[in-house]
């Protein structure tokens, strides 16, 4: 599969989707002007990946901040992940960031995907 590798900016996250090297990561800040447009290629890529997924997938979320429009799209991403066998989400949050920890808990309650909350 092709690789998605987006550099993070002040309002968009860094995204790596690389099946060959087994890296699946969304990190940084997500507050794009048009979150639906921004996440469209990510959702398309993941929909393809569901049909040819690796035997095991670890998906890392390491978000520092996301706006409410992005939260809807993050839920869409997680919903696609429900269709992948043996997938686990690693949800990272700064040790003192209770809001990001709670966001991880809430997302884990909304989708049928295994979550591990990881303070750092």
């Amino acid at each position, binding site marked *: 599969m092709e690789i998605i590798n987006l550099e993070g900016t002040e309002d968009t996250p860094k995204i790596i989707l690389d099946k060959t090297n087994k890296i699946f990561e969304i990190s940084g800040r997500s507050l794009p*002007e048009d979150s639906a447009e921004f996440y469209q290629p990510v959702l398309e890529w993941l929909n393809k990946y569901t049909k040819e997924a690796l035997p095991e997938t670890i998906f890392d979320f390491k978000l520092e*901040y996301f706006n*409410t*429009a992005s939260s*809807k799209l993050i839920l869409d991403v997680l919903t696609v992940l429900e269709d992948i066998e043996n997938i686990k989400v690693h949800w990272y949050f700064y040790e003192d960031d209770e809001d990001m920890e709670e966001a991880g808990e809430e997302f884990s*309650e909304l989708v049928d995907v295994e979550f591990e909350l990881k303070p750092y």
Partner: protein
Amino acid sequence: MSTMKYIYDMHQMMLKNNIILVYEGEFTQEITKSVLAMAERNMDSIGEESGIKRKVFNVMVECLQNIVKHGEDYVSADLQINTAIFMIGKQQNSYIITTGNPMKNELVDGLKSKLDKINGLDKDGLKALYKDIIKGGSGLTDKGGAGLGFVDMARKSGQKLEYGFEPLGNGHTFFSLKTTVPRG
């Protein structure tokens, strides 16, 4: 030079109200990024605690993007209000984030009942409402919002959202919103 006194008055008014940043004008994503960067720098320079900084940042983003998405252009013969305002104040015990923007009269009742509903909920009620809206499955609005901004501001700040409406005439109303983020 009494015509120059407004500069002094403005400065005094800002000092008196502990306002650290004011932006008046057109709101775009580029402006949003600049305002956020300035406010972040300001909080960094006084060594603000990272948890507070994140909450203020959070509320600022939702406020600014609300205006980018929903602020209405409004121009009349005697009033030139086609722009919005954003301010941050820093008190001893809190940050105050305020916005004001013109909106259409017919949307006022809906907005008011939405804010009243949010203000009537406690922490758990807000969490339940957030989850209801996000899994509602209705997707984003035609303006690209999730319909979660005010709920999120209430949750992150832990305070009621204060608001007011001033009639502008010509079918428009000026909407003012104030969110308080406690320090420590």
